[in-house]
């Protein structure tokens, strides 16, 4: 059975005032502002409709929802008519039925009568309404002028546009505007010629369409239809689960036919996305059953040996024996584990438990190390908790939105749509970013301020903003006095007011005019509810943690924390970055961000786990590489993470891995890291297991198994078996038991359980006795640490200096259609949007070097060199170049350096000094990479069946 929430026709209205009316003789009470259609629906009365759907504002065009209202003339449309107290409405009368039937007759007179072979058969609102209105004949015949021969647009890889089935209800156009905010669709032509059109009568793929699927979702017919539905047919059951892409954590209904996914439909009741989606979550799930999946365990002694397919028992026995052998030879601390933030909370918890209890050390880390570890550090120091402060919905109450070092339209698209909606409603936008990102200027969106700073100068910019706030009397004195530490504030105020931090002084550092900075600071401090959203453009710097603390300082100084519409909001890169940090994946912290040296906490876990836990921190990922190269770290269990492609200075990483004696990789594909592995344990995709993800707003949501694991076991089961073989028994039979253990041992999770998640849909931690329903907004009455702490954040230039030899700054990032290392999205049709990483460069820089658009360019840094195609764009500032890291052969991280954040070792991906030049050949590294990859593929091809 499909889990499809009821469509009430028009959006829910929120009002303290309630209105009672009578609909078909029934008394119904709803908030003021509610439409008659919705009031009726909530009361169980379904008014016929076609152009109305409750994700969109009412439009009143289809004329099917006409009702009679006592004392009023005519037949108003119920979707556009708000309820009034005492109103008496009739939704079903012979006259209304006759009118509706007449409307349907007109629709059907220009509609192909191919219901039996139509892909929407059984799930078509037009078909349903024909039945509801009792349509039995079409008096006009079908021979007149019609649209039945219009050609299909099949350019989009995921859905078709069949204009012959279009009823011009405008739902798709409105969805593109209201829900997605792209404005790619319109109605072209007038009168009878009116048709939905992408762009200026272009094929969808040539238009501005971002393939979010909102139009397909809104379409009441088969006009916009998923190709998977056309190919497979309608689903027969569905399971609600959580997307495994970015940190927004959208809820989806996986619509299934047996064990096959028919389509992923954004779940309307999902609290993170409220029914919206992006091209990745909505359509790019085909990787889960891609032919590259490896479903049999494999082992080999050396990475130059062919892989050998073995049984699960043999693979796990071998991995365990190798780990034991290495510990015997090199000591207890010579092995460790890395768990990806793509894995579930339960998987992350088990890996850190395995490392601490079975390996007997704290050498466990997560890929959050290389993205948001500075967030954990910086927010803990200032506010007291390593997490964002708000819900996504909070942005609906923002008056000023400050986006720094984030590109939400590409990296967090569903939240970006929400943000853009608020900006269209009038909120002011400040963008601090070296690039002219889409938010700076796009349809109906224009940033009030774009501060195009030089990469690596965030802290200088934040200091300049603070200077204006302090010296121009814009401080929230009352908030600071009551909520923050006096001593630290006074010290910070003195620091911020120093002339060296003024926008005028910092202008030479940031490259941004003082006037712009002053304007932006004034707007942030005085524009009403002001919220800061930031991403990896803040954290992935030598001063990443300092910048996070600088952001927290600004929020406290202006009183923008602890209520709706404000706050400090880290936009997490991967789906479970927040969760992986929460559940103890860092080497220095047990679950709940408690340091391993905290005796009370350690004893709690020791008692529960029945082992002694080391009281000293373990190695972080970069430390593991260094220790491998000095011979003291020789074994690694790596679950779901591709460190070779995603970590900086690739050649350093591969040298470290090559020095190790046993690397166990657990993944769904033979990723770049697996090419250096000795044991391959097949992983399970998010569709094949149960668990939870925690998104950027601390929202814990269920991941539900919709198909059996292709390799027999879910990832958590593999960790359990490995632990058992290492002599530390684990006996979980379901991830729910793991969550129960997390809840028992972690104060901020004590109220979390699978039963409660079933009941509530999702929960934002802390969820405990003090907050049994979770905590949407943090730090409401006081900061988690008591008083907020201001911290001095002096700007220090990065060591990665621009010189005559390396005169440009390379900064890296992501794009909409690809995700992280691309292991998933490269194996989908998303490659049609982005088939290779390119180097974006300002035309002036290109001209100086004789570089043509599309030409090959060598990028050389102090770490290495690689070759990419050039893309000339004025979205870049002169002196700065940009690329993505979605394709391994690009070697983006061959160029990035080992410079890292002073506090957390988060790599400085965003600043690398480079020189570029036009070349004809790929780089030496790329040629070696091609040879190595071909060789590894041959070794994989030689794997023999068990």
């Amino acid at each position, binding site marked *: 059975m499909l889990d499809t929430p009821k469509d009430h026709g028009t959006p829910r209205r929120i009002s303290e005032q309630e209105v009672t009316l009578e609909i078909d003789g029934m008394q119904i009470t709803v908030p003021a502002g509610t439409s008659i259609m919705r009031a009726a629906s909530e009361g169980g009365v379904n008014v016929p409709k076609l152009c109305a759907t409750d994700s969109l504002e009412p439009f009143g065009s289809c004329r099917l929802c006409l009702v009679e209202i006592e004392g009023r003339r005519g037949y108003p449309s119920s979707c556009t008519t708000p309820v009034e107290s005492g109103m008496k409405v009739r939704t079903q009368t012979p006259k209304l039925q006759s009118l509706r039937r007449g409307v349907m007759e007109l629709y059907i007179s220009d509609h192909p009568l191919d219901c039996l072979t139509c892909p929407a058969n059984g799930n078509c609102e037009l078909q349903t309404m024909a039945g509801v209105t009792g349509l039995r004949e079409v008096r006009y015949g079908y021979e007149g002028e019609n649209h039945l021969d219009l050609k299909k647009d099949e350019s989009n890889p995921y859905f078709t546009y069949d204009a012959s089935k279009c009823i011009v209800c405008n739902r798709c156009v409105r969805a593109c505007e209201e829900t997605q905010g792209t404005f790619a669709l319109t109605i072209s032509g007038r009168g009878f010629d009116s048709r939905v059109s992408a762009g200026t009568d272009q094929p969808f793929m040539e238009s501005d369409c971002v393939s979010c699927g909102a139009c397909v979702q809104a379409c009441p017919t088969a006009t916009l239809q998923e190709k998977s539905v056309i190919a497979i047919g309608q689903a027969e059951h569905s399971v609600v689960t959580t997307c495994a892409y970015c940190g927004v954590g959208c809820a989806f209904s996986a619509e299934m036919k047996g064990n096959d996914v028919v389509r992923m439909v954004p779940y309307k009741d999902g609290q993170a996305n409220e029914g919206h989606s992006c091209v990745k979550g909505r359509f790019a799930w085909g990787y889960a059953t891609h032919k590259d999946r490896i479903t049999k365990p494999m082992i080999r002694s050396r990475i130059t040996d062919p892989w050998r397919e073995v049984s699960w028992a043999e693979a796990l026995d071998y991995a365990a024996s190798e780990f034991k052998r290495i510990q015997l030879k090199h000591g207890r601390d010579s092995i460790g584990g890395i768990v990806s933030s793509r894995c579930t909370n339960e998987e992350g918890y088990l890996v850190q438990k395995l490392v601490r209890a079975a390996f007997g050390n704290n050498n466990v880390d997560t890929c959050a190390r290389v993205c948001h570890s500075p967030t954990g550090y910086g927010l803990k120091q200032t506010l007291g908790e390593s997490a964002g402060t708000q819900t996504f919905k909070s942005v609906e109450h923002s008056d000023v939105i400050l986006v720094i070092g984030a590109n939400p339209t590409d990296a967090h698209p569903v939240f970006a749509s929400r943000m853009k909606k608020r900006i269209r409603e009038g909120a002011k936008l400040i963008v601090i970013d070296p690039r002219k990102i889409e938010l700076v200027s796009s349809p109906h969106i224009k940033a009030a301020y774009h501060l195009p700073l030089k990469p690596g100068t965030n802290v200088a910019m934040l200091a300049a903003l603070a200077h204006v706030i302090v010296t121009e009397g814009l401080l929230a004195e009352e908030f600071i006095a009551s909520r923050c530490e006096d001593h630290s504030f006074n010290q910070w105020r003195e*620091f911020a007011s120093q002339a060296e931090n003024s926008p005028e002084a910092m202008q030479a550092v940031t490259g941004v005019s003082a006037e712009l900075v002053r304007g932006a600071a004034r707007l942030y401090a005085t524009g009403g509810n002001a919220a800061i959203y930031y991403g990896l453009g803040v954290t992935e710097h030598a001063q990443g943690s300092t910048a996070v603390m600088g952001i927290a300082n600004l929020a406290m100084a202006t009183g923008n924390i602890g209520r709706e519409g404000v706050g400090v909001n880290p936009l997490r890169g991967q789906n479970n970055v927040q969760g992986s940090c929460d559940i103890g994946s860092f080497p220095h912290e047990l679950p709940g961000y408690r340091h391993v040296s905290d005796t009370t906490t350690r004893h709690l876990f020791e008692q529960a786990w029945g082992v002694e836990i080391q009281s*000293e921190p373990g*190695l972080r990922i970069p430390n593991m590489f260094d220790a491998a*190269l*000095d011979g003291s770290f020789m074994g690694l269990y790596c679950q779901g993470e591709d460190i070779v492609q995603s970590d900086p200075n690739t050649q350093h990483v591969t040298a470290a891995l090559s020095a190790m004696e046993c690397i166990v990789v657990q993944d769904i594909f033979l990723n770049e890291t697996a090419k250096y592995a000795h044991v391959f344990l097949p992983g399970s995709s998010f569709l094949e297991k149960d668990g939870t993800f925690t998104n950027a707003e601390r929202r814990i949501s269920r991941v539900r198994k919709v198909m059996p694991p292709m390799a027999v076991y879910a990832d958590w089961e593999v960790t359990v078996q490995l632990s058992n073989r290492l002599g530390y028994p684990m006996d979980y039979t379901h991830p729910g038991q793991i969550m129960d253990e997390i809840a028992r041992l972690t104060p901020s999770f004590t109220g979390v359980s699978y039963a409660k998640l079933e009941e509530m849909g999702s929960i934002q931690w802390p969820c405990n006795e003090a907050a049994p329903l979770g905590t949407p907004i943090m730090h409401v009455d006081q900061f988690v640490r008591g008083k907020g702490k201001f911290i001095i954040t*002096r700007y*220090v230039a990065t060591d990665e200096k621009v010189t005559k030899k390396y005169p440009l700054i390379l900064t890296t990032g992501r794009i909409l259609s690809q995700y992280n290392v691309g292991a998933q999205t490269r194996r989908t049709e998303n490659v049609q949007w982005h088939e290779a990483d390119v180097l974006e460069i300002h035309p002036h820089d290109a001209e100086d070097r004789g570089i043509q658009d599309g030409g090959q360019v060598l990028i050389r840094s102090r770490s290495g060199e690689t070759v990419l195609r050039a893309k000339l764009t004025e979205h870049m500032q002169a002196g700065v170049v940009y690329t993505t890291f979605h394709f391994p052969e690009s070697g983006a991280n061959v160029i990035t350096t080992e410079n890292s954040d002073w506090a957390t070792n988060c790599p400085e991906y965003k600043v690398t000094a480079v020189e570029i030049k036009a070349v004809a050949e790929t780089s030496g590294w790329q040629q070696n990479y091609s040879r190595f990859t071909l060789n590894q593929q041959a070794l994989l091809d030689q794997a023999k069946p068990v």
Partner: protein
Amino acid sequence: MDMNNLIHMANKIGIFFESQPDHDEALKGIAAHIHSFWAPRMRIQLLEYIDQNEVTSLTPIVLSAINRHRNDLQPHP
């Protein structure tokens, strides 16, 4: 582990805390940070480096911090 890298990391920590107004707190902060986030083998190596070299590449504030809080930086037995 690469000593130069450890020195570099320690000096970066020192630069952050050097900007804090209270010098004693800054020294404490440097030591506490290294103690909280560095694995024992890294701390041992750093301490041995200081013991074995009269002149180090560590910045004065880092050296002061380590010397003052040396006992805190020793790994637990």
